[in-house]
């Protein structure tokens, strides 16, 4: 996996702020492959949230510009209630999981402060 380790905590924090603390995230595409170089940052997110997905994705990309600068970030989001599309299956299969789902029974509401 080729992401600078220091980008992981702010990446996961931003995803959980926007898509809930239960969100899981995978890095897929060329960045998940150690044998390749460069490339876009492809993220696949599973969430319990089902509304305002476009606005949330926009909010997340704005936050991630602060982490990754000009590097292109692509985000695929799947609410868990929706069926797995081929792109979702591919991301899960070849991707590297960056953040697991919070343990059951754990407080799932976001904290008002970041």
């Amino acid at each position, binding site marked *: 996996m080729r992401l600078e380790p220091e980008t992981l905590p702010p990446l996961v924090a931003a995803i959980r702020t926007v898509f809930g603390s239960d969100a899981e995230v995978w890095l897929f595409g060329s960045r998940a492959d150690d044998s390749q170089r460069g490339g876009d940052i492809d993220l696949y997110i599973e969430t319990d949230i089902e509304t*305002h*997905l*476009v*606005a949330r*994705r*926009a*909010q997340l*990309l*704005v936050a991630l*510009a602060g982490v990754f*600068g*000009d590097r292109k970030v*692509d985000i*695929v989001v799947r609410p868990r209630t*929706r069926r797995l*599309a081929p*792109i979702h299956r591919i991301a899960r299969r070849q991707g590297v999981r960056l953040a697991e789902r919070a343990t059951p029974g754990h407080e799932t509401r976001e904290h008002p402060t970041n």
Partner: protein
Amino acid sequence: MITADHRSEGRPGYDRDLAALLQANYREAARAAGNLRVSLRRTQTLFPIAAQTLESLDEEAKERIDAFRVRFADLQDLLAGKLFRGLLRLEEEPALSQLDVIHAMEKRAIVPSFDDWKQLRVIRNAFMHEYPEEAAERAEALNLAQTGAIGLIETLARLRAYAVGHIGLPPDTLPLV
């Protein structure tokens, strides 16, 4: 046409070729903004649009929506791809990355905020299809774009005001939008 350097006693404080390029690109954007305004009017009764409605539109309404999408993307591309950079070149301010460009536009109050501009970009990508999206997200993106379209036209108007007020381009070379 009388150019700026004939009017004043000295040379204009800018490169004339770069200015001519910006003026030509601006006129193209002004046409795109005019088209977008027409599309906004012609889609007015469809908004806000629900996912279900979007899936059951007749062909004529689908064409109106498609024209709106393309015109929104056209104006945004002209602003981000040509006008912002053209303006900075005219001011001899090198901008290395696209982020630098947007920050420079925010500093000049041409875009209201970096975040707003970035969001418009995401909205556009959501309806111009990066990935097949559910109808709910296509509808959400279109609804956001309806508000965003006004923002794009206003951005062009602020860019014009800046080019006239701060760089000194003759106002009659930049038609109002």
